């Protein structure tokens, strides 16, 4: 068998089928399979803390892929992801805790309810775009959060609600490792679905809307339908991520879904790469681990600067803001592009292009 980690020396497609394939050459498929297998066995050797972090990264990645469908692929900026995560989390919480339904029904329902809410707040996209739409989604964020924190009888108000871990028969997903696998399966399904979505008619329509909406309309794409559809598909995954997050942390409360979360998700897709499925995953890992590394760094330096830990929260914000700005200035296409550049370097080596 050929070594799967040897790079192909260029892409030579002779028909459309080859051009549209997810894995351009069979070696890439083997390579991806090996990576997936490594990710699948890694919790068996890693510590609970690391597996927990990986779970958080994965859940963020599911939500980020959802947001990327809307913002990266369809070009509709949304500053309301935080609230949509909240809708997902709360739907699942209410269905499991108040109505006693099982997690396996509650999670897809959370996705569907969030999709409906997302579609509803996508309706203004009929008339608005760019900046104005971004502001409309910001209003969605504020209003949804207000409803959640005031509808005491349903949501428990500002105190929030307590959730339980999902179970199959007598097996409860209590350990970090088991929840990691639950997240992993859903992340893989999300990734495969999204990769295939953008090989389909609907996905191409999304991209056409992003690139030039008027030109897309001239070519017969129903703008309104596809914009709202993008909101619906995107919110579905965000809702699923919200439900997963709720059952993982076992608590939902309004302050977990503030505008900071929306900004964090926007930063994820921006740092990862707009319009890149794998980029969303890289971005999610990067942004989720950033505060962790920062804290470790501060702890290491606390011997030299003992006051440093007092300003950790402020420093987190500063670093977060700087990361966004620096990526925007130096690599607007994000980590996905950086990774591609590295691969291209080896693909073309020893020539520069």
């Amino acid at each position, binding site marked *: 068998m050929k070594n799967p980690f040897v790079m192909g020396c260029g892409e030579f497609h002779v028909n459309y089928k080859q051009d549209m394939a997810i894995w351009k050459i069979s070696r890439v498929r083997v390579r991806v399979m090996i990576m997936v297998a490594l990710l699948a066995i890694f919790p068996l050797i890693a510590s609970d803390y690391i597996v927990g972090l990986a779970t958080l990264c994965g859940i963020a990645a599911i939500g980020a892929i959802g947001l990327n469908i809307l913002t990266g692929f369809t070009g509709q900026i949304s500053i309301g992801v935080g609230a949509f995560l909240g809708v997902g989390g709360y739907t699942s919480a209410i269905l499991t805790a108040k109505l006693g339904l099982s997690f396996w029904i509650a999670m897809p329902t959370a996705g569907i309810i969030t999709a409906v809410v997302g579609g509803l707040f996508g309706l*203004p996209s009929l008339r608005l775009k*760019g*900046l*104005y739409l971004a502001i*409309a989604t910001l*209003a969605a964020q504020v209003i949804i959060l207000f409803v959640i924190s005031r509808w005491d009888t349903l949501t428990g108000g500002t105190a929030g609600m307590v959730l339980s871990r999902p179970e199959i028969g007598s097996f409860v997903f209590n350990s970090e490792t088991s929840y990691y696998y639950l997240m992993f399966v859903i992340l893989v399904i999300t990734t495969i679905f999204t990769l295939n979505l953008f090989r389909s008619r609907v996905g191409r329509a999304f991209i056409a809307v992003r690139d030039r909406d008027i030109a897309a309309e001239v070519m017969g794409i129903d703008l309104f339908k596809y914009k709202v559809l993008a909101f619906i598909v995107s919110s579905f995954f965000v809702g699923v991520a919200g439900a997963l997050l709720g059952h993982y942390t076992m608590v939902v409360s309004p302050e977990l879904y503030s505008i900071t979360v929306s900004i964090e998700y926007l930063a994820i897709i*921006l740092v990862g790469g707009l319009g890149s499925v794998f980029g969303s995953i890289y971005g999610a890992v990067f942004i989720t681990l950033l505060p962790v590394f920062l804290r470790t760094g501060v702890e290491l330096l606390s011997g030299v600067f003992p006051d440093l830990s007092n300003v950790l929260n*402020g420093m987190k914000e500063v670093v977060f803001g*700087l*990361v966004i700005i620096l990526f925007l200035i130096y690599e607007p296409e994000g980590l996905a592009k950086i990774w591609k550049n590295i691969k291209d370097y080896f693909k073309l080596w020893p020539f520069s292009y």
Partner: protein
Amino acid sequence: MAFFLQMLVTGIVVGSVYALVALGFVLIYKSSDAINFAQGEFLLIGTYVCLTLITAYNIPFIAALFIALMFSAILGFVIERIVLRPFIGEPVISMIMATIGLSSALAGLVHIIWGHETRVFPQIFPEAPVRLGEVVISPVYIWSLVIVVIMLVIFTFFFKFSKLGIAMRATADDQQAAMSMGISVKTIFAVSWAIAAVVSAVGGILLGNINGVNASLSAIGLKVLPVAILGGLDSIPGAIIGGLIIGVIETMTGGYLDPLVGGGLKEVMPFIILVFILMFKPYGLFGKKEIERV
């Protein structure tokens, strides 16, 4: 009736501060097509600088105000030069994310330097309330209104008669034409960021005198969005009228509806209005309608 009038007066004062901050916001949008999500942090920094000068260095209020405004202007210049200049002509999302990143970084700096607790300005305006018929008004409110009106008049004259003001209007109208008339568009961008930082600082200092200063003051930065959208994103008179309307509606909601729903509606009301404006009249009361050509 007295309650209504009281609410009206409070609303107008709060609204006039919104108008002032929205003015800076609209100015940036008009000149460089950028939405500034860091407006709230500009406000916060200006306020904290003024407060620190007064409390830690015992500088008289007027001098402290002047230094704080100078500082804000320089801050605006520097930020435009370092952060925003690379994004001229970039897609909307880059611009939005750049200012969001900026706001996060500035908010972090404020937390590091000044911490989280609420601070109060020392007594600057006289304390004894003024009675107008049935309405009781504290002097801070009157002074705020006076200062805001003076600022707005100054800016109206500035845009109408000064060379720089006319250049700014020309740039907002048509960048290429302005360039060909020898106007440095880059200078205009820098000046509009500086002015935006200055007016936010004034707004922040006034609000800080009324309510005390803490990090939540920067929420004004988001509340300016409904104001600017209501008036029309590119209209300066629109920002002023929009500010007054939103201020009054918000205070009225706080007075009449909040007791019914248990509070919190006051903060959300501007955004509910925002959704309706966007649905029915997206370019606001005075905004210029964008016509797209293929």
